[in-house]
């Protein structure tokens, strides 16, 4: 379940590298034109980006201060008001125990976002160590790490997550760690190749020629430049991590009931999909929107990063 197709990000970067490489009397005009068209693309998405940003901000608000958007108690049951379809009192309807789905979706933002962010942080953190080690610690380490990554790649992500969960038992923490672990190899590859290309870039040589020490070059040039795209990765990754964590919850391996976590809500609602569609529709929709919004913003960042 590597969170992203590596190609997607890598393609953007190699594009950047390509345009930087071909500058010259001739290439400059071309790259100006290229940038022009990129700007055009960005303009086309401008509205989408604003909407995405607005949506994510409201999610963050919901995570930080859910009471503001939904003053009710997400756990308050009312069996007599179970399965109420969306309407005035309950904009998203109620679930099988009469809990208000809107309230639960809002209160679910915090756990879902935390899982997404934490899983991505674990994945990217691990990948940073692995990727940078592979790229910078010499050929033997690179060989070892690359083989390790290859092996991890041979495990489909969900399988890796399943194994982790079988060993350590289901729950929020395990599924977060599982998603993080499962996504790490994908990130590590990207970070490795990114670091390698930064390390091989002319400005690093220029720093060597100036007589900078290895440590200083690492700290001042390689790390920051290799890390910039990691931002993009993280943004793109959070949405997908939310989706994968939800998948684990959906398989009954994630958050424990009755926590208002989106994936767990979907899991609970799927049994009523024919009679109470709203129970799965709204949590699912929020997951899709959250993932889509992070992607939109991630791509925007990525394009900006391309210079």
């Amino acid at each position, binding site marked *: *379940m*590597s969170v*992203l*197709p*590596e*190609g*997607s990000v890598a*393609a*953007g970067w190699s*594009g950047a590298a390509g345009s930087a490489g071909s500058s010259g009397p001739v290439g400059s005009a*071309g790259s100006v*034109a*290229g940038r022009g*068209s990129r700007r*055009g*693309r960005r303009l*086309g*998405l401008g509205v*989408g980006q604003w909407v995405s940003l607005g949506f994510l901000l409201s999610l963050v608000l919901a995570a930080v201060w859910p009471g503001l958007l939904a003053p009710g108690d997400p756990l308050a049951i009312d069996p007599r008001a179970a399965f109420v379809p969306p309407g005035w009192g309950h904009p998203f309807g109620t679930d099988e125990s009469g809990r208000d789905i809107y309230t639960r979706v809002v209160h679910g933002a915090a756990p879902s976002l935390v899982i997404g962010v934490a899983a991505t942080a674990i994945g990217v953190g691990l990948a940073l160590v692995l990727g940078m080690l592979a790229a910078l610690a010499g050929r033997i380490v690179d060989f070892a790490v690359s*083989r*390790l990554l*290859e*092996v991890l*790649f*041979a*495990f*489909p*992500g*969900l*399988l890796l997550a*399943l*194994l982790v969960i*079988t*060993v350590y038992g289901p729950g929020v923490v395990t599924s977060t760690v599982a998603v993080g672990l499962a996504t790490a190899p*994908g990130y590590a590859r990207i970070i490795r190749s990114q670091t390698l290309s930064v390390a091989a870039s002319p400005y690093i040589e220029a720093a060597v020629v100036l007589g900078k020490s290895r440590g200083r070059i690492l700290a001042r040039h390689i790390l920051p430049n290799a890390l910039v795209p990691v931002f993009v990765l993280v943004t793109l990754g959070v*949405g*997908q991590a939310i*989706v994968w964590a*939800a*998948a684990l919850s*959906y*398989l009954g391996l994630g958050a424990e009931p009755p926590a208002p976590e989106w994936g767990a809500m*979907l899991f609970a609602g*799927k049994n009523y*999909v*024919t009679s109470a*569609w709203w129970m*799965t*529709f709204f949590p*699912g929709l929020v*997951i*899709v*929107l*959250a*993932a*889509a919004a992070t*992607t*939109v913003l991630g*791509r925007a960042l990525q394009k900006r990063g391309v210079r």
Partner: protein
Amino acid sequence: MSGVVGARRADARGWGPLLRGLLLRLAGAVFVLWAAATLTFFGLRLIPGDPAQALLGGPGSQASAEALAQVRAENGLDQPLILQYLAQLGRLATGDLGTSYAQKNSVLSIIGSQIGGTLLLAVLALAVAWLIALGLALWATRGGRIAAAVGSGLEIVAAAVPHFWLALVLVLIFSTTLRWLPAVSTSGPAGLVLPVLTLAIPLAGFLGQVIRESVLDALAAPFTLSARARGETENGIRWRHVLRHGALPGIALSGWAFGWLISGAVVVETVFARPGLGRTLLNAVQLRDVPLVVGVVLVVALGYVLVTVLTDGASRLADPRERAA
């Protein structure tokens, strides 16, 4: 110019480097398989629970102490872990994947009976995803701004849709409401439509994003301008030039897509009640059926290795730059 001469020389020598590359690949594949088996073996042994229990019908079965001891002895489970591991490796080396604890059947035959369905599902889903992604990319880059925005919006949403949710929505629409398509898989092609779509749509979203990006790059590339300057038609440009460039990163992504599809198969096969490796795996993991899990992991890892070789080959075929590099 020297580069060209060199290229010709390499052709003349042909087989030597090819063989060496093949051997290297083989060694890499064997390593991956070994590591996968080892990781899984020790990973599953970390799980609390006695494999002998699993052999005797799982926890909750009222197996007697003698029966447990006998089963342990029979299966070498009383040996030290390292010896068990070596024995397992020895068996694996001879192609013997062992016997499933829960299904009391040879792992190889279980996998053999399940793999077909999963492969069919995965291959069809990949093909459909390709069709959707290419079609969408070509359409979205042809029209104006609105088409582009709609296209990229669709891709992003498609990539964001969790397949478990998509499956529910598709079933709700096409089976329960419209009654057009069966909700569970049937032997006929109709039963494949929803499972394939469920897997293909999110994948198409990912592929589409990458493909569209490179289609746009190809459309903006000087060689396209140069083709236009020769009087090439818009369709000609798409068919002769852009399509291939668009496909390249998609091909490179197909190795990743394989793993993704296997992950997805776990969910889709469960929802649509399809037999297959994904469901076998989920059950086996839940039942702690170590031999079966190791077997499936090995087969999947092997599949991954094969797909990587194939996609490498495909992109080499499609892109001479790869060969030069």
